[in-house]
């Protein structure tokens, strides 16, 4: 049985090894410089920067496919400016520094005209400097905490006021159960923290006392919600109608809801409204015990509109033909997918309008850009704040994992990335500052 140790290499071999270092440097770094496809002049390259491995793959992989689908669609219609779109897919592997590196690669090596990507705030913040330095475009498709507004980013997901606040308003309404006390529950990172900060301020403005609000945070990937649920039960039993506002991060939702169901906490007693739980997240849960719990989004798969029926069908077909794992037998659409879809199309239209892929021209063209969204509304890109006007839907979980829309805004709502409920934002305009 040989030992686990390695002998020290005799000194005589040493010289060659040192020179081996130089070789390795060249070799290792030479590799990534190899460009994949020869720079075809008749295509416009489009970067796709979504994690296909690591912890975020669970949510982001499907967005990659959505982008590819949208691109196929556009190419089928003859592409843009007479050129076909050529997607360049990379895997930042849920590793934040790698996001920045890959962004740089897409922009400077592959010379892509635009990048669709990112999910977590930290990944967005990691790539932001790259996009601003190289003055390129990022389309970010996920609901987020606001507190940011870059001229190089278009935010097609919801700002807090397009999701969180209407949801809480609904909970306080008669139909929502007239909740008086709130449990703000989230994973311990910036999106829940910010959202809850905004909500607390909002609740104060509605006359809810601090005594009637508790905030609870769990680590990433927290899988044991027994104590938390017990706490919620206790809190809810000690006073008037209680509701839970959940900003739990994707992966922890399944254990949370399973526990919720098994502890017998019914939506009619303590409704839970979630901002990060959509069709995709519920895929992993048995929803029968969860009927009536809520989610707030700008899109639901169950929305009845011709545009949506078409969108869902397109996705279903695409998933089947391309054999998208998981979706080919049970295709699902959700809000970030819709946001991605809108983003790609809007960008294409803007390019066509600007007759160029030049960043500044496209930004100019994006202002006021409209698109008939699957959501059933015409969503409009705000003239200046780089966010979409979006309708807000409140859905109740159904036994089949879909959502019943029980409430919706009369029309699209303008985004307010610098929420007025955060004192520091006083006097901040919802306009990207011109970076000098």
């Amino acid at each position, binding site marked *: 049985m*040989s030992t686990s*140790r*390695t*002998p*020290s*290499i*005799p000194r*005589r*071999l*040493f*010289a*060659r*090894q*040192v*020179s*081996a*270092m*130089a070789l*390795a*440097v060249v*070799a*290792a*770094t030479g*590799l*990534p*410089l*190899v460009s*994949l496809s020869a720079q075809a002049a008749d295509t416009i390259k489009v970067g796709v920067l979504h994690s*296909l*491995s690591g912890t975020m793959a669970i949510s982001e992989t499907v967005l990659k496919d959505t982008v590819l689908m949208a691109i196929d669609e556009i190419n089928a219609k003859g592409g843009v400016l007479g050129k076909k779109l050529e997607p360049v*897919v*990379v*895997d930042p*592997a849920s590793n*934040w*520094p790698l996001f*920045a*590196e*890959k962004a*740089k*690669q897409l922009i400077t090596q592959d010379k892509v005209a635009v990048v669709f990507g990112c999910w977590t*705030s*930290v990944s967005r*913040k*990691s790539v*932001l*400097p*790259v996009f601003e330095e190289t003055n390129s475009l990022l389309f970010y498709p996920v609901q987020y905490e606001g*507190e*940011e507004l870059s001229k190089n980013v278009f935010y097609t997901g919801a700002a807090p006021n397009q999701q969180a606040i209407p949801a809480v308003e609904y909970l306080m309404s008669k139909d929502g159960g007239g909740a008086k006390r709130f449990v703000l529950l989230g994973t*311990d*990172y*910036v999106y829940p*923290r910010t959202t809850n*900060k905004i909500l607390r301020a909002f609740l104060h403005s509605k006359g809810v006392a601090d005594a009637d609000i508790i905030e609870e945070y769990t*680590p*990433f990937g927290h899988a044991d919600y027994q104590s938390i649920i017990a706490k919620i039960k206790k809190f809810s039993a000690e006073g008037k109608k209680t509701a839970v506002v959940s900003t739990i991060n994707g992966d922890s939702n399944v254990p949370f809801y399973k526990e919720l169901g098994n502890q017998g906490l019914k939506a009619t007693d303590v409704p839970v409204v979630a901002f990060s739980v959509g069709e995709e997240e519920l895929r992993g849960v048995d929803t029968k015990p969860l009927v009536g719990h809520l989610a707030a989004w700008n899109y639901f798969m169950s929305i009845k509109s011709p545009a949506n029926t078409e969108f869902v069908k397109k996705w279903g077909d695409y998933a089947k033909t391309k054999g998208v794992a998981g979706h080919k037998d049970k295709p699902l659409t959700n809000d970030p997918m819709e946001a991605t879809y809108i983003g790609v199309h809007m960008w294409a239209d803007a390019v066509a309008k600007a007759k160029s892929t030049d960043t500044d021209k496209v930004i100019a063209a994006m202002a006021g850009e409209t698109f008939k969204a699957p959501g059933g509304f015409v969503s409009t890109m705000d003239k200046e704040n780089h966010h979409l006007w979006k309708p807000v839907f409140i859905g109740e979980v159904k036994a089949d994992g879909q959502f019943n829309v029980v409430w919706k805004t009369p029309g699209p709502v303008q985004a307010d990335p610098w929420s007025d409920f*955060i*004192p*520091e934002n006083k006097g901040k305009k919802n306009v990207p500052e011109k970076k000098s």
Partner: protein
Amino acid sequence: MKRDRMPEVPALLDVKAVLDPATALQEASRPRLLTPAGWGGVLLALAIVAIAVPLANLVAPVDSVFHLSDYAVGLIGKIMCYAICALAMDLIWGYTGILSLGHGLFFALGGYAMGMYLMRQIGRDGNYASELPDFMVFLDWKALPWHWAGSGSFAFQMLMALLVPGLLALVFGFFAFRSRIKGVYFSIITQALTFAAMLLFFRNETGFGGNNGFTDFKRILGTPIATASTRMLLFVLTGGVLIGFFLMARAIVTSKFGRVLQAIRDAESRVMFTGYDPLAYKLAIWTLSAVMCGVAGALYVPQVGIINPSEMSPAASIEMAIWAAVGGRATLIGPIVGAFFVNGAKSWFTQVVPEFWLYFLGALFIAVTLFLPNGLVGLAAQLRRKKKDVAE
């Protein structure tokens, strides 16, 4: 004993040696720091880092074949930081036989020390136009917390980048080694340590920007950070540090100290009963390698532009071990080669086969452990030996 593990018997074993041991032993007892060729290699590396790359990146026209893109420079710079970690890993694991699964922590601490300084350098250019970093404004903090006291001064933070990892390692190591924690037990508690630290840094209240960590740096020492020249400066600096550390490590392992370390690896009890105090030796090398990682972290942050707790995740630390192993433990060159090879492969695979790159990487690790017990460098040595056998 497998053939490939057997280093050849040196030529100095001849009749003369037996008749006149003294001179032969003289020879054997005074290992040179590097062979002349070795020095050549070092100089070559130095030249590449300090002259060739800057020229290729800054001077050579973009379309020429000699041009090296900013992206490539950034990538190599990043990997050189990793190489430093691998080197540190090799000293403690390859030579002393102590596998740490917590070196990511020291790396991150160094990074955070630098990050804090860079955050302060943003000054009033943040979102909230405040002297405080944005995330503090956001937490409604009115003043800097105590642990940010010195963050304004570059010198102080750099000192911290050395001291914090160093002291942590010193204290942790002292207790761990004193209570004779060995082998996997040690590995696991180092893992526990870094995991705990990660959770701690995730908390916003800890005062390090929570999950987002530090990003969007503007300038370093007053000069803008996102310029080609600044980047090149950092690059050359990193390269210099790497080569410097390499020579230092070389000096260590060729000294008696280095041999004691290997002795500890091979038979710690014998070392003890020979009168050496393993605690002192382990502690020394352990602390040193932690400091090296701290330095690597400090160089890493300004180049990649972000530091966040995920650098402390157990996986990150395991990868460091993997770089060392792939390159070849107890060879010094090995870890550097390994770091470049693995990370180069990673960057390449994630680009050409984004859906399948994990298969390649996984297969690589398995292949290396199965077929190259001494890593790539070991393979090189083996091939040479084969050639010689054929020749003879």
